[in-house]
């Protein structure tokens, strides 16, 4: 296995929610991202996956736990000391309409990281670099001086990607980069992300709620439920043979676009996500889990290794 690029150890983050209440957004999460791979992060809305992504690159500071970059802890660093790392981690946003400043031209948008890190000496050089980047993501150079609102969603997402790769990052966190796009455009963007990864040796953390997309693009996957990782492992193994009941229900709930494979009889998860403010005791999943026992209600399961995979369940594979 290649070198570990980014490692998180026991990250915790809570947000205040009214009087004396807290949202437990991320609890005790540890993960590793290796150089050159794509790690998928899957979960339903409100499970803390976006918060986790932002904790990793210190857009949000953790309450406890630490982040290591190539083995060096960076959690306590001052913003100035961290800036050399900051340059190496970029983010692609979900909403291509909200993530580009409407009052800046394409050139200024893509040039912003170049200027911040003084990559280019002169204005002409900057423009040249911007044109190169635009070409790389498939936005014609003639639109250099246009504003974001003049582009379609897919094109805006391309501009966002150009901005993310401008300062030559190592890791890009893709936060639901295609979920706001139409199906046909979604595939164009996924192809582009792949292409850039092979050309530039990028590492991705790919956050999504769409299992098909994650399955397509990732090497490894982490499944999150209510602020915790409940299962992780290589993508095909995990999809073929899930160990955590939640993973299995997630996979079952996928709507296959094939009328011959209707899942009318498949078992569905009951109820809704418990509130992240009043967490259930013990295993956080036990209120929805049909296999839950008294043990699950009282004791929180620890992460255990099974083969090349990790799962946090007292009874992994119980449903088989």
């Amino acid at each position, binding site marked *: 296995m290649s070198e570990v690029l980014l490692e998180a150890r026991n990250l915790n983050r809570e947000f205040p929610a009214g009087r004396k209440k807290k949202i437990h957004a991320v609890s005790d999460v540890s993960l590793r991202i290796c150089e050159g791979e794509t790690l998928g992060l899957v979960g339903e809305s409100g499970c803390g996956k976006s918060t986790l992504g932002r904790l990793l690159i210190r857009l949000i500071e953790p309450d406890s736990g630490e982040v290591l970059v190539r083995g060096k802890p960076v959690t306590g660093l001052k913003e100035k000391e961290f800036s050399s790392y900051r340059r190496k981690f970029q983010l692609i946003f979900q909403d291509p309409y909200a993530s580009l400043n409407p009052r800046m031209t394409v050139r200024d948008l893509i040039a912003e990281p170049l200027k*911040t890190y003084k990559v280019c000496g002169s204005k002409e050089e900057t423009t040249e670099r911007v044109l190169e980047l635009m070409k790389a993501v498939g*936005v014609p150079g003639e639109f250099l001086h246009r504003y974001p*609102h003049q*582009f*379609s969603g897919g*094109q805006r997402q391309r501009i966002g990607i150009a*901005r993310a790769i401008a300062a030559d990052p190592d890791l890009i966190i893709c936060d639901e980069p295609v979920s706001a796009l139409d199906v046909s455009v979604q595939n164009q963007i996924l192809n582009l992300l792949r292409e850039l990864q092979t050309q530039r040796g990028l590492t991705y953390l790919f956050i999504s709620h769409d299992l098909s997309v994650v399955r397509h693009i990732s090497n490894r996957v982490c499944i999150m439920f209510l602020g915790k990782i409940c299962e992780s492992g290589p993508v095909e193994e995990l999809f073929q043979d899930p160990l955590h009941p939640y993973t299995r229900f997630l996979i079952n709930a996928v709507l296959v676009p094939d009328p011959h494979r209707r899942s009318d009889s498949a078992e569905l998860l009951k109820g809704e996500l418990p509130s992240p403010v009043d967490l259930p005791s013990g295993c956080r999943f036990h209120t929805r889990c049909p296999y839950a026992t008294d043990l699950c209600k009282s004791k929180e399961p620890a992460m255990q290794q099974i083969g090349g995979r990790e799962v946090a369940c007292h009874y992994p594979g119980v449903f088989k």
Partner: protein
Amino acid sequence: MFRKKKKEKEQAQDIRLASQIDEEESFFSLMGRMARENKLAAASAILILVFILAAIFAPFLTRYSYSDMDLLHRLSPPSSGHLFGTDEGGRDILTRLLYGARISLLVGVVPTLLSMVIGALLGLASGYAGGKIDALIMRLADIMLAFPSMLLAMVIMYMLGDGLINVFLTLALVNWASVARIVRSETLQLKKKEYVEAARVIGVSKAVIIFRHILPNCLPTLIVLFTLNVPSAILTESSLSFLGLGIQPPDASWGQMVNAGRQYFYNAPWLSLVPSAAIMLIVMAFNFLGDGLRDVLDPHQKKQ
């Protein structure tokens, strides 16, 4: 290679298609659109311009002096010689109105600009920094906003004393708090926007984020606020002057002219009514213009 070329062509076409959806709207084309769609706003803009020009070129527009008395023609009603009549000193009211426009317009614009700058800076600081700075500024704003504005203006005038500059300062001090509040809430909203987060991801400095990403996106709100605050400044000043607390002679504002005419109101109502009407017109013009600007500039308050 061929495939790639084709792809680029397609994408170029993409954008041409997309760009039809939302044609480029520069500031001028926006104003043009407003003028076309909102005739009232356009007329108001012209009226404001006329007032400004009249104030600047007042000496060329009238053959009377604004201060020389003409005791033979005291309190004469509107006639062809004196379009709006004369006052108790026989001075032509139209002439005094033109000169008064200088003060009244200045009183609308200067303190408003001042309060906008103070309010915007404090609002930005408060919204972006949060925490103690925010609490301090906002409590201060709460206190300022708890006063009925006339009474606050009266107290500040009392504190500073008379004089044009002091009137400016007073009006600025009365108005900054509401500007700060609005800018703060706008900043809070913009701060959560993904493009501001994107700038933080890139690692740009706070100053750049505030002045390049947040402030320009507050501008539409600020422009609208400006056009709506100018008339309220004019109204406050005229009310102060009406009570005899604002501009003092020999400077003449419209509000002061109203006040001067009060004692002759039943014999010569035009003394007070003409400047009142002038105040009403300019205030109305600014209000119309502000509404028109809001319709085209503010995406939240779409045209209705």
